[in-house]
């Protein structure tokens, strides 16, 4: 074997429009750049992972208040992640009053958002109320253990992959496959002798 084919990506400038559209919607940057098939596959992969995570663990896996470190990575999916988190916080969680002890030992009541318990429903003001019937489900079910971990992980990986896609959209490369001569092969040594 005298040549080793290698992928060589040559920089091809900076495309701010593609970068911005890639941040707004995963894969859109490549579509704007004219690489429609590539953009659709990137978008399908990232959104598939993000919504796949929600399918596994429910909307509970996107939670900027209870799982903030994970949400940092999930937010890299773009405005969609912030939208899902907003819907989760404001339309599914309940506003509950909890007692908190301050560092100086004083007890105070504060209003905080939490997931509804199994036999609770959400009233029109967002407060938790006992379900009228045992079969009335809560707005959403809090996921636990493996399903929560894996659902969260799916969304987190989707966000991190979107960073790669945004960089690739904003700083396009030629992606040429060129032949790179191998340094230490019989063919190369013969070429040097000749």
């Amino acid at each position, binding site marked *: 074997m005298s040549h080793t084919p290698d992928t060589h990506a040559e920089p091809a400038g900076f495309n701010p429009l593609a970068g911005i559209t890639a941040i707004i919607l995963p894969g859109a940057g490549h579509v704007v750049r004219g690489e429609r098939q590539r953009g659709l596959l990137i978008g399908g992969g990232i959104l598939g992972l993000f919504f796949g995570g*929600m399918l596994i663990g429910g*909307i509970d896996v996107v939670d900027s208040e209870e799982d903030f470190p994970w949400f940092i990575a999930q937010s890299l999916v773009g405005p969609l992640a912030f939208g899902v988190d907003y819907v989760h916080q404001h339309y599914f969680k309940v506003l509950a009053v909890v007692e908190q002890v301050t560092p100086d030992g004083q007890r105070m009541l504060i209003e905080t958002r939490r997931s509804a318990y199994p036999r609770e429903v959400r009233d029109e003001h967002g407060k938790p109320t006992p379900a009228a019937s045992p079969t009335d489900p809560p707005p959403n079910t809090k996921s636990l253990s*493996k399903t929560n971990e894996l659902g969260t992980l799916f969304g987190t990986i989707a966000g991190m992959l979107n960073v790669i896609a945004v960089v690739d959209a904003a700083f396009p490369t030629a992606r040429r496959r060129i032949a790179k001569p191998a340094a230490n092969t019989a063919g190369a040594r013969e070429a040097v002798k000749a």
Partner: protein
Amino acid sequence: MNTFLSTLTIAGASLPELLMAYRPFLDPLPLQRAWYLLLFPLCLGIAVTYKAVRVPDMRRYWRDVAIFTTQLVLSVVVVGGLMFWVVLWVLPRIVPMPA
């Protein structure tokens, strides 16, 4: 098959009962005991996205996705096996636990 389906029961509820109560995107899937199956869609999703960015020739795309998915799944299985071996075989010999 029945054995596999029986792993998908939680708190005595059968799979059909769990699926009837399941609301997509609101409730978690009843996969607490078969969670490792989610490794395949996870690796496939990573491969679909990464190879869409990486491959120079889209005609080879799905072939590269299949290869990369297999590599990812096998890598995770091998690393998982190594960790299992270290924790359950190596560590007890290095640091014996009191009886």
